[in-house]
């Protein structure tokens, strides 16, 4: 089973989704929960079987798809992708379990299972085309979820989401094809294997262009300023489950791709673009935090906060050292857990009141104390309080970037201030004060179904905040091999000096081919 565990993880939900058409609509939710539990258990088994001391790829599978063109079904995971996969299956499971009254429940469940396939696929793919296939395919279920179950502007939001990301990824595709062509030139055969591409040393000018092409695709997905405007609409209109998965997993594709593609393939370009990207990241952090502060809709606050946090992740990624990248990967997990939980929490109140405007609430803490408590914990996690999950990632990301630039990190560090400003003020508006709106007077507190999803997330948020080691160690090992590879490959003196040399670490792939 271990040889094909990744394939099982990818295609089990897809198969289940197809079979799901036959399931009676009343049992659809139970079916979805059952399948996603199996999937989650398998993904946990993956973790169990994963050897944290190996820095390279594990559970590799390879099957030629278009050998004439070098496209392979090539799977494998390392410490970076492992946990995002687990998180994807966790959120699908919790998401389905927490689904309330939903029209067309069956369609929803089937769509979610398809979405799960694409999510796992993206993070398990080691072939650029395979990666692209899942990357694009993930748009479709999300388009449907937003468009079919969303709010009043759902069609605008979903189409915007789709087209925006689609455009970006097509440009990325051109970049991939160019990369493949360069590989072809250097070696005489086509290959889209990421691991093969790692071996290619490119001249700086090529790196810059390729980096830019990949960047557009990834940046829109992340989403980085100024490409972020699809996100508020998508989140604002999406149903709770859509927002949860979008924020928790889909956004991570972009930052994951930076680590998987941009850094090890174009170390010199990454160094070259480090500061421009850092500036964008700072804008993301501060600007979006301010915009979040101005929101009237609590869901939009969380949506913009996502962008702000993604800024920290991007910054950590481009620290180009082990601390920063490890931190950013960890923050991906952390942000996934926390923002996912926050969206679930917003969904709880939305289900009760059918509005997300903070002015409609106020004083909820006394009406729904348990709800307020969990919200408070997650808010504090989001704000980056130590011993909660996000702090570890934020701390390491900022710490990492501090090696590259002091003033930039200082500016980016304002994340902890501006983040507190919008979060606390939103919390105050919604939860504190007297109950002024009569409709809120008798709201029922959070119920069992909702707790099923939220309690595990709360536990994870605290557990990983106190004891991040089980996750941090595998991530660290994989990141070390990437950084070592980058240092080895770097050709400009700038990059050589910026990317730390790690003596005695295993380099994932020796560079052999060189394009001139």
């Amino acid at each position: 089973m271990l040889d094909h565990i990744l394939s099982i993880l990818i295609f089990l939900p897809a198969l289940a989704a197809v079979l799901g058409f036959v399931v009676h609509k009343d049992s659809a939710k139970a079916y979805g929960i059952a399948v996603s539990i199996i999937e989650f258990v398998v993904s946990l088994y993956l973790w169990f079987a994963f050897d944290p001391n190996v820095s390279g790829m594990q559970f590799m599978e390879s099957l030629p798809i278009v050998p004439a063109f070098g496209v392979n079904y090539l799977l494998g995971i390392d410490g970076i992708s492992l946990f995002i996969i687990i998180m994807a299956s966790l959120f699908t499971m919790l998401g389905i379990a927490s689904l309330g009254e939903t029209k067309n429940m069956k369609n929803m469940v089937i769509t979610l299972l398809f979405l799960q396939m694409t999510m796992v696929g993206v993070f398990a793919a080691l072939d650029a085309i395979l990666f692209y296939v899942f990357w694009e395919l993930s748009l479709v279920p999300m388009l449907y979820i937003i468009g079919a179950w969303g709010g009043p502007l759902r069609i605008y939001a979903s189409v915007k989401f789709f087209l925006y990301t689609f455009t970006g990824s097509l440009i990325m595709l051109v970049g991939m094809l160019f990369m493949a062509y360069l590989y072809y030139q250097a070696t005489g055969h086509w290959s889209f294997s990421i691991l093969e591409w790692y071996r290619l040393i490119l001249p700086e000018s090529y790196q810059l262009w390729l980096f830019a092409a990949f960047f557009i695709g990834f940046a829109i997905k992340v989403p980085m300023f100024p490409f972020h405007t699809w996100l508020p609409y998508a989140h604002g209109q999406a149903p709770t489950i859509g927002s949860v998965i979008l924020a928790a997993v889909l956004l991570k594709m972009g930052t994951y791709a930076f680590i998987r593609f941009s850094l090890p393939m174009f170390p010199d370009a990454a160094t070259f673009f480090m500061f421009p990207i850092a500036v964008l990241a700072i804008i993301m952090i501060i600007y979006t935090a301010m915009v979040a502060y101005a929101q009237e809709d609590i869901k939009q606050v969380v949506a913009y906060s996502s962008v702000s946090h993604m800024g920290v992740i991007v910054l950590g990624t481009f620290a180009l050292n082990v601390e920063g990248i490890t931190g950013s990967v960890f923050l991906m997990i952390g942000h996934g857990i926390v923002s996912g939980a926050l969206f679930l929490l917003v969904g709880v109140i939305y289900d009760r009141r059918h509005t997300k405007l903070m002015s409609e609430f106020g004083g909820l803490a006394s009406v729904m104390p348990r709800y307020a408590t969990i919200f408070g914990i997650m808010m504090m996690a989001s704000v980056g309080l130590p011993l909660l999950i996000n702090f570890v990632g934020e701390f390491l990301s900022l710490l990492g970037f501090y090696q590259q630039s002091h003033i930039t990190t200082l500016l980016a560090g304002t994340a902890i201030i501006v983040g507190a400003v919008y979060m606390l003020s939103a919390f105050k508006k919604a939860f504190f004060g007297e109950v002024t709106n009569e409709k809120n007077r008798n709201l029922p507190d959070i119920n069992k179904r909702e707790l099923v999803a939220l309690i595990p997330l709360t536990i994870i948020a605290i557990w990983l905040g106190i004891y991040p080691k089980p996750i941090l160690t595998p991530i660290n090992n994989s990141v070390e091999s990437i950084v070592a590879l980058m240092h080895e490959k770097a050709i400009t003196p700038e990059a050589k000096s910026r990317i730390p040399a790690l003596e005695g670490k295993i380099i994932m792939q020796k560079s052999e081919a060189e394009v001139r």
Partner: protein
Amino acid sequence: MLSHVNVPLESLNIATLVPMLIPIIGALFILVIDLFKKDLSKSMYVMLSLLFVLLDFGSLIDFSIQFNTNGTMLGYFDLMLVDGLALLSQFIIVGASLLFIPLALTSKRFHEFSYSEFFALFLFMIAGFQFMVATDNLILIFIGLETASLALYTLIALHNRTKSFEAAVKYFTMGALAAGFYVFGAMVFYALTGSVEIHQMAAVFEADGFANLPYILVGVVFMLGALGFKLSLVPFHTWAPDVYEGASASMAGYMSIVPKIAGFVVAMRMFEFLVHSGIVWMDVILYATVVITMTAPNIWALVQTDVKRMLAYSSISHAGFVMAAVLIGSTQANSALFLYWVLFTFTNLGSFSMLWISRQKNLPAGQSSDHPYTKFAGMIKTAPLVATVMALFMLSLAGIPPFGLFWGKLYMISSAVAGGYIVLALIMALNSAIAGYYYVKLIVYMFMKEPVHGLEGKVYSMNASTSLRTIIGIAAIGTVFAVIAVNPLLEFITSFVYNSGY
């Protein structure tokens, strides 16, 4: 003056004519049957035609085996040229026809299919296209083209609606003008070289180093105009939307595939040596044409309210996309063209067939065209399976992986990148993104809007019959599981194209 013609029969290699003769014989056979017995069921004609087309397909397989061993074959006074291009395009032509014919077996009665002439003309048309691609003689190309076109005009008109007559007249008139362009171009080349065979013309031009460049360009311009009409390159595309709208959906689907591949092969033969001659003008003009043909119809497709018309514009755009292969001119690009077109065949046939099964006999009140977007609103609720399949085709057309057309796009853009046309590759990518909008728009209507036709899903499969469902099933399978077929297909196509010297 004329000397006695004495040609040994075996050197004629009459066999090269067999693939064209089969449909011609079939057509005559059908006409003869009609002479003896009227009012035969259309299913009989359908099956008969199918039989002949299958035979034709079989002969092509035979030829491709021969091609693999012997390479390019000439025949019939060297008029016939059976190379990889010819075979590949004939495979597409015949294969697409094979899938098209069963669409005549609709559950609603459309009277064109009750005429035996319909099938006879159809078979003649196939033969015409086959002639067109299997030669590099301008005369034979002309004859093939006109045979096919005249048959096609008639087939469109047979749909017997005011709009289809209008479409036929428009198509016919413009076709006549294009024929004028073609012969004028041919005349110029003939005047310059004294030959009407493309390879000889090329040889003459190369021998004198393109001395008469201005005149050559005049010839090229007229040829481009004529082929541009066939391939619906902007600004010679204006017929396409109207004709697609006027013709029946099945016919429109057919038109979006078969005449174009024939045109592409001629264009490849015609422009290959010119592109490689290093004439800057040629590159610039083709580049501009490709870009405009990709972009402009894309933008027009955005604003359409009728799905069929949207698909018409999208087909034009796809043609422009593929035309890039002629510009790039590498083996990879030419292979990409065929790969793209095979995959496009399945997807486009599928999507037009989907329109065809939702075709009502008469336009309902308050509906100005057959397939407005609004008609498909909320389809997921009323006819989930139909909606899903339709969405599948739209996603494939938009180039969402892993559906069929994605692989074509992938390979085509890759060939542009490899050919050094990075900017072109980017334009292609961006156009795919724009195109995403109108394909997704249909999905939006189907999946995200409330139904307008009540909860009765019947309207979407008004015209459905077993054979239509089968065809759609084949198209859907071809679209979804293209992944598996891409590699063998690619290897097959590449070896054929490469061995033909393109």
